[in-house]
């Protein structure tokens, strides 16, 4: 397979590269970079395509089994949907609110850091990583695995370490939130990601990966690797 053929295939179906595509990428850094950029583009396309769905559009589908006199099926259906939508809105209000706002902010922040989605074996510059950890007042034990990205990010008015750790289940974003202390661990899933924010040290740690990542194991590893003692 030559580079042109590779790009034609990877550019058409980057999520499902066949063996030949992967083999070519392994031996051609430029094409491997193309595949990474295309995957990143796909992530952004998915975010753009995922237009908000109103509670009514997400409403329960009621079976229009028995027509109601005076109402045609469509009206009956709309009526049923609106009743369920009302219930659903109530549920959303109860489920939403502050409990999820930290998680939402973490996910929103990730949108601005495309590096968080790059699969790579290349570690971050040790000097950069060192500075990020120092600014965040933490140390990181090597057991955490390959840290491919490190940045000191502004998050909720504070500067926090934003790391990407490469795992078997793909890249995982780790944000060390010294000033955010949830009462209990928070789990969330959205836009194809799953994440958790776990109380740790004086604050918490957010860990976000692909929806199918083994987040419990990864979170455990991250918690064990973060040393807050630099404070």
């Amino acid at each position: 397979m030559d580079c042109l053929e590779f790009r034609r295939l990877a550019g058409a179906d980057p999520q499902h590269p066949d063996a030949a595509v992967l083999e070519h990428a392994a031996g051609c850094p430029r094409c491997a970079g193309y595949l990474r950029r295309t995957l990143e583009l796909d992530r952004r396309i998915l975010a753009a395509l995922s237009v908000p769905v109103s509670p009514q559009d997400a409403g329960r589908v009621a079976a229009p089994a028995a027509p109601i006199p005076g109402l045609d099926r469509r009206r009956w259906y709309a009526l049923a949907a609106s009743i369920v939508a009302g219930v659903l809105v109530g549920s959303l209000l109860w489920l939403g609110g502050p409990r999820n706002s930290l998680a939402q902010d973490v996910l929103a922040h990730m949108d601005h850091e495309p590096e968080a989605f790059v699969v790579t074996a290349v570690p971050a510059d040790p000097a950069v990583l060192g500075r990020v950890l120092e600014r965040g007042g933490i140390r990181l034990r090597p057991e955490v695995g390959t840290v491919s990205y490190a940045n000191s990010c502004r998050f909720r008015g504070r500067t926090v370490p934003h790391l990407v750790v490469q795992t078997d289940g793909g890249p995982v974003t780790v944000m060390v939130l010294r000033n955010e202390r949830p009462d209990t661990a928070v789990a969330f899933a959205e836009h194809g990601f799953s994440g958790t924010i776990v109380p740790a040290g004086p604050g918490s740690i957010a860990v976000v990966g692909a929806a199918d990542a083994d987040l419990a194991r990864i979170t455990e590893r991250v918690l064990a690797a973060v040393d807050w003692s630099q404070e």
Partner: protein
Amino acid sequence: MNAPFTGKHGESAFARLCDELRPDLFRFAFWLARDRQVAEDVVQESLLRAWRSRESLTEIGAAKPWLLTIVRREHARLYERKRFETVPVDDLVGSESPELAAAEDQQVLDLRRAIIELEDDYREPLVLQVLMGLSTDEIATQLGLTQAAVLTRLFRARQKLRKRLVVGANDEGD
């Protein structure tokens, strides 16, 4: 099982399935019509049609492509019935569809604009692949194309979006 959606049990199973898939169906309809109100009508009509024909669905695994086909047909039917006026893309982004204008960040908004402006031939397979998770084979069946044609359209769709984003970024920098 030959008819998983027959009888009382089948009815509730089908209602649950539609319940799960409805947000996806709405998004698909939205990207076909590029209009929230039209998408709502299309999905509502589609689900009614699906409900009436549910017993013809013999495999649960085939439900999503089957429903997507119904949504596509219903959308086409709606356009046959009503001759919608052509809406300029800027109006569509700015005022006709406020949810597009209220994207979470500028990058998402730029990309939504670019996707809206893609020709139907490119936008639809891209939505089916990236949003609906269909394989290129399934997209080919859905659109009545060869797999090679689908691959070409998907490649070109991404190329166009890339180009558009690069131009947009350069414009901002100017």
